């Protein structure tokens, strides 16, 4: 089947990078909340939470990079350039790729914003 065939396309790809952002965000939040509520003592080290958030961030950014790369490949399919508004399967393919790439960029920025908490916080409060 051709790469641009309708059967091989899905709108779900658009949501993949934002879903990774959401997963990263929720995991960081849940980890920090449970740690602060159940584990934290005034003098206990916060390092494990920070390491966990760093680890989530690396995994999330790697995933977003892969999805962004897939999007870029689709965006560059064939020779046509933006705005991808032709009534052809190829332009629809490029449009979905380009939008995936853009959403990956936004998701990456949002993940980095969230990860900045490990720079600013040395304990729960």
């Amino acid at each position, binding site marked *: 089947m051709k790469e641009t065939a*309708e059967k091989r*396309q*899905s*709108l779900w790809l*658009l*949501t993949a990078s*934002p*879903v990774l*952002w*959401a997963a990263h*965000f929720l995991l*960081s*939040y849940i980890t*920090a*909340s*449970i740690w*602060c*509520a*159940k584990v934290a003592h005034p003098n206990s080290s916060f390092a494990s*939470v920070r390491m966990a958030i760093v680890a989530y961030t690396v995994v999330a950014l790697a995933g977003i990079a892969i999805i962004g790369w897939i999007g870029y490949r689709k965006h560059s399919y064939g020779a046509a350039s*933006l*705005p*991808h*508004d032709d*009534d*052809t*399967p190829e*332009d*629809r393919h*490029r*449009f*979905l790729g*380009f*939008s995936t790439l*853009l*959403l990956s960029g*936004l*998701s990456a*920025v*949002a993940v980095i*914003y*969230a990860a*900045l*908490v490990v720079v*600013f*916080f040395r304990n*729960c*409060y």
Partner: protein
Amino acid sequence: MIEAREALEPRPDDVEPLADTPPEEVQQAQAERLLQAWKTPTGWRYWSAVNNSEVGLWYTGMTFFFLLFGGVLALLMRIQLARPNNDFLSAETYNQAFTVHGSVMMFLFAIPVFEAIAVMFLPQMLGARDLPFPRLSAFGFWCFLLGGVFLSGSILFDAAPRGGWFMYPPLTSGYQPGIGADMWLLGFSFIEIAAIAAAVEMIVGALKTRPPGMRVNLIPLYVWYVLVAAAMILFAFPPLIAGSLLLEVERAFGWPFFDPGGGGDPLLWQHLFWLFGHPEVYIIFLPSVALIAMIVPTFARRPIVGYSWIVLAAVGTGFISFGLWVHHMFTTGLPGISLGLFSAASEAVAIPTGVQIFCFIATLAAGRVVRSVPMLFAFGSLVIFVLGGLTGVMVAVAPFDFQAHDTFFVVGHFHYVLIGGALFPIFAGCYYFFPLINGKNLSEKLGKIGFWLTFTGFNIAFLPMHVTGLRGMPRRVFTYPAGIGLDALNLTTTIGAFILAFGVAVIFWDLIRPKKNQPYSQRNPWKAGTLEWLQEMPGKPWGIRSIPEIDSRYPLWEQANLERDVDEGRYYLPDAEELKRETIVTSVIDAQPEQCLRLPGPSFITMVAAVALGGFFILGTFHWWWPALASLVLATGVIVYWLWTGTAIIPEKDEKDVGLGLKLPIYVSGPQSVGWWAMFITMLAVLTAYICLVFGYFFFWTVRPDFIPRPTPGPGVFWPAIAAALLLSAWGLTLLARRWNARDWSTGFYGALLVAVALAAAGGVALLAGPWVTGLNPTRHVYPATVWLLIIWTVFLVMVGIIMQFYCVARRLAGRMTSRYDIDIWVVALYWHFCALMVVITVAVVAGFPLVR
């Protein structure tokens, strides 16, 4: 058409309309048959109409009525605050006024107006005859009308809610007897059901009823925005339904979910409320800014700049807006690291929001802008919204929020966001789209007067509020002492509010003034490029004469002779040979035709169903539980009758020739069908509400050391495990029944379903047996209360599942379902997938988690 745009070159794989004009008498006969099929009922039967143009109009009209109602309350508050130590309103009335003002504006204007506008115009933009579930839209409207009138009427009887529009317990649980809070909780739950119904309609409509050839890269931007906003409703409204359930059960039966005395925690309400409340702001904003995205290209006389970027903005905002809810709770003492995460997301959401505004500015800069009233409102909207967005970035910074929280600064901020981001775009939309409603233009003169009054009045009212807030005036306080620097500011705000109100009055007069003697507008008066402007002036009930093949984002600009070909019936479905309402269903990505969908006609059943269901909520408000339950049973009966007579009708033939040599099936079953999609989307919402209850369980476990007492008092492992085994077997048998039905083995089908019913009933009883046998008392502590609630929720869904199984048995017995026409059992099996998932989670949580913690 527009001189600057050239017609598209035809492509070899394009579907071309009929080359020759059909004979005049053929055209006329077709038009007569279409008109007969789509005829709007007359006389008192008019109110049985389900056509999107009627329902959308009633819906929009009602939301505007509620806008005025909320506005009058705002003016009363502003009179009270015009001077210090005023006694125009008592503190008690003032409390009711601000609670009802906020609730009405949010729940009865801002959200429903988006649904109303979408119901009205989505089919036109998609070249469809109607949305896929017209009766569902009508049902949603009647629910909204009933709930809305009940709620806003309460203030006339001094019985309105008075806990603020976000109803924080313990104020609303322990300190406010009377029915005000119950009215809020049950009334809005009822209206949220209507909103979810509308969301189902819009998602399926946007994905499946696009015109042939409208690929995803050619969809009008409005439709992208509506798709995102409707998907957000699915995940944003269920948390509030779950929260309302908890709070109402606490108020009515004393289960202490939010009462620290019984181990509960009022913060859970804030989490659930804002998990709804923040995305809701974007659910309001996105469809409104979508109107701007339609208006700007028309008056810039060029395609939008950055189409993909706007899609990025819509989808990105949709996601990130779910990571902001805690910024309403910055001052509740959560760990700083949590605040940091939510502050980060609150700043991040400014990026996609800004992107779309830059796209609009770029489009205007690159085009040749034509002056018009809609553009005036669009400009006003951008100015006001950008200011509101900037103060939003300020309050997203936690330390600043600590200072500004609960002051008039925040009031100023969110009115800039909501009036700039929603009200002004809607006014722009009124002036832009009005000719589509009754074929007449609104007055340019009144529009300009209305704009300048509302724009200046708004800024005079709300700009000083920021200073009022920074000087320390708190929200929701009915008066203030003289001479502390607030007098002049408050008086200015009140003057501005009245100028704003005067402007709104001018606009409303323009909307409702008699236009009998005014000539009809010309067709496509703004020379727009999008499909809705194909409509004749005035419009016909059939929506579109024939359904065109789309090759462009702006078909009216770029597809030569489109208007002529559509009008002469040279495209798809130019006729209604069987005198039935029909539209075309297409595939999600490339909009390839898949089905000729028969749509239901006028019916009062939607109104009856809404009244019966409303009875449950309204009687429940007064805690008359037995009549309420009777009303619920009645509603179930009505809905079953509705489904039985109006859905999954076996057609008289398999295929229909829709024109241009294309034959499409009339009856489609399984995951291809719109009904299956609707069930899938509905169950996503149900699952979300359920997950919120599960979240409650783990929330209590996190914050309360005594949650899950030691030793664990119940519900044990034995009964939940038995229940899981029985219910999962019932699920498996339902799937087998689907397979055996498809093979036409009726003994197997009936046997499997009836055994499944028995197992499901036994499983439900076993599930209830767990906490019953171990003597868990839900009024004593939050742990038994939470366990009971999870179990009752699951058992309720199983009961609905049993009704569905019986329904399938009856359908086949009555010959309304066969091995070939089997959509009912497909939809029921899908329901049971979700049911099984919830059973597994419930048992794992209530029986399993106490073992492993």
